[in-house]
């Protein structure tokens, strides 16, 4: 009951005319950006964070605007997956499997409508879950001490992307690299300058937003310059302008099954949206693929992963808001956003700034409705964005990134840092190192060190305190299990790949 009251207060915050207008604007802009080829949700939100800052909104409004942009990007991303077969980000890959064949068979607008409805159901399901479970988790997490938080961060780094099948050594290295970069700058505890090369530009360390924009947006440009000779995505015509209700309903229970599976994998540490989309697709295929039509344009093959993807992204907000530990790339960007707004997520956020938390949750409900309303009738408008030539789009994105970063500090040094991170990100992506753990390390490094220090000052320097509380021990046990699982899966995959090549 108390939750409902708080939620009602949240709606009171989110439904002020300014905030409502920002929500609609955010949804519209987000869908537009998300539908541009080559700009996934992470890139889209990253380049707009600094821009939103220069609007000088209060934190709640800025948060509402940016989370609506984020949700809009998620909706828009599927447009290029379905019409061009170019997924905007990793979770969208599963949508291309059946979405693109559907579009080629002349059912493009049906596929888009199904994915919009699936996104709506998945995201709404997850938002309801967020409303119910986040306060519960926050009230548990309030008992976490510094050593428990340290254990929690260890778990976040050890498990992120763990079961996605990428080389686990590289994922762990990426997490450590992020933490190492986070230590650059004046040490908050003692004021000692670390790794600054006596350059005062580095005394504040690297701004996570600058790093994110470089790692994602600039590296994307370099990727495109490499592949542009081979990439000639041909757009599939939209077909019927307004899809039939019957076709939309053909997603059936796949919407619900996808939402449930996605939500669970979203809440799990380190799993995130990619796993949500993947598992939903696989489960739906097992469940309802009677005639082998999955992968050839089965509507349920669009509905399940799209519901799973959006539900997982919503579910991933639970650990991010209550514990301050994001589980996926997009929630990591959201965390960067909160930190730059001077909001430290965690259990105390629910007690001290309930208007922010519940205003955000209410805004997510509103965003889902607005997006559904925008996406079904206006779909032919958004598909026009796909025909924007890359030689206009890419330079434009680069310049917006430059200006966004410049607006943070008014220093051209940060522009160079951004380009540096872009090159760094490009090399890492080529080598198969995921960028998300780096961002996570960069964002959480300072907090991780602070908690370690707090724990050690309680115990007067005795490291034993890290392993005394039952919460910390449980977290280490989960960490160890997940690590073993991810190494086992990686080695099995490697052995199989080896057998195939022989």
């Amino acid at each position, binding site marked *: 009951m108390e939750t409902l009251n708080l939620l009602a207060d949240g709606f009171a915050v989110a439904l002020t005319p300014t905030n409502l207008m920002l929500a609609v604007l955010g949804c519209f802009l987000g869908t537009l950006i998300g539908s541009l080829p080559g700009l996934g949700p992470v890139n889209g939100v990253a380049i707009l964070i600094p821009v939103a800052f220069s609007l000088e909104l209060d934190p709640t409004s800025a948060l509402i605007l940016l989370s609506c942009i984020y949700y809009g990007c998620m909706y828009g991303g599927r447009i290029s997956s379905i019409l061009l077969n170019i997924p905007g980000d990793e979770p969208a890959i599963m949508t291309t499997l059946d979405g693109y064949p559907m579009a080629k068979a002349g059912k493009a607008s049906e596929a888009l409508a199904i994915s919009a409805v699936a996104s709506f159901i998945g995201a709404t399901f997850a938002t309801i879950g967020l409303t119910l479970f986040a306060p519960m988790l926050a009230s548990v997490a309030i008992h976490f001490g510094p050593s428990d938080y340290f254990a929690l961060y260890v778990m976040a780094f050890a498990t992120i992307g763990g079961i996605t099948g990428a080389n686990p050594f590289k994922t*762990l290295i990426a997490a450590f690299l992020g933490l190492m970069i986070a230590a650059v700058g004046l040490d908050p505890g003692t004021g000692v300058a670390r*790794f600054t090369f006596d350059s005062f530009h580095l005394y504040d360390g690297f701004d996570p937003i600058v790093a994110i924009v470089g790692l994602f947006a600039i590296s994307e440009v370099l990727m495109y310059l*490499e592949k542009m000779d081979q990439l000639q995505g041909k757009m599939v015509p939209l077909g019927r302008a307004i899809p039939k209700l019957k076709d939309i309903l053909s997603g059936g229970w796949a919407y619900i099954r996808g939402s449930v599976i996605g939500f669970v994998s979203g809440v799990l540490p380190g799993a995130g949206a990619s796993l949500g989309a993947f598992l939903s697709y696989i489960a739906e295929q097992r469940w309802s693929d009677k005639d082998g039509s999955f992968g050839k344009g089965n509507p349920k093959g669009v509905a399940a992963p799209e519901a799973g993807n959006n539900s997982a992204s919503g579910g991933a907000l639970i650990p991010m808001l209550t514990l301050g530990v994001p589980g996926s790339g997009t929630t990591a960007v959201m965390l960067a956003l909160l930190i730059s707004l001077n909001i430290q997520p965690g259990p105390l956020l629910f007690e001290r700034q309930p208007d922010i938390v519940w205003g955000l949750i209410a805004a997510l409900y509103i965003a889902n409705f607005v997006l559904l309303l925008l996406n079904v009738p206006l779909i032919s408008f958004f598909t026009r964005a796909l025909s924007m030539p890359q*030689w206009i789009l890419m330079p434009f994105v680069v*310049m917006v990134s430059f*200006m966004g970063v410049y607006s943070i500090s008014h220093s051209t040094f940060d522009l160079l840092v951004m*380009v540096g991170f872009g090159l760094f990100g490009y090399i890492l992506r080529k080598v*198969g190192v995921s960028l998300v753990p780096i961002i996570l390390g960069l964002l959480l490094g300072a907090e991780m060190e602070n908690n370690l220090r707090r724990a050690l000052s309680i115990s007067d320097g005795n490291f034993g305190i890290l392993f005394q509380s039952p919460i910390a021990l449980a977290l280490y046990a989960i960490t160890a299990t997940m690590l073993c699982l991810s190494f086992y899966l990686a080695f099995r995959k490697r052995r199989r790949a080896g057998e195939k090549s022989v």
Partner: protein
Amino acid sequence: MTDRIVGLVILASAIWYGVTAGTYEASFGDPLGPAAFPVMLSVPVAVLSLFLLIRPDANPDWARGAALLRQVAAICILVSYALLLERLGFLFVTFLAVALLGRLLGSQWGKSAVSGAVISLVLFVAFDQVLGLPLPALPEFMS
């Protein structure tokens, strides 16, 4: 091979990082000090990088020929943009950068010049006039 090189670079960086961090000293009361955490980070990275040296993945296809040239040119444009922005003014540098990047992305000179002019003007109006971010509009010697 790529993984081995990357592993070697990371190993070297980790050793440098750990050794550098080890020299940091704080004179007063923090039980951990500024050195311990970075040193704690450098050891596992060094160990993990050994695995890249021992068991590298297959090589990625690196860009060659024209693609590599395009990437190098793009980096040069971006770096020069950052260095010249305050010296030559936003309008001119942005026009040049957008036009050159557009050319790299396969458009003709004429079209990219037009897109450069339009984008630099639009962004100037949007950021300087609407969003209130003061930009150095013109070259230093003219303002």
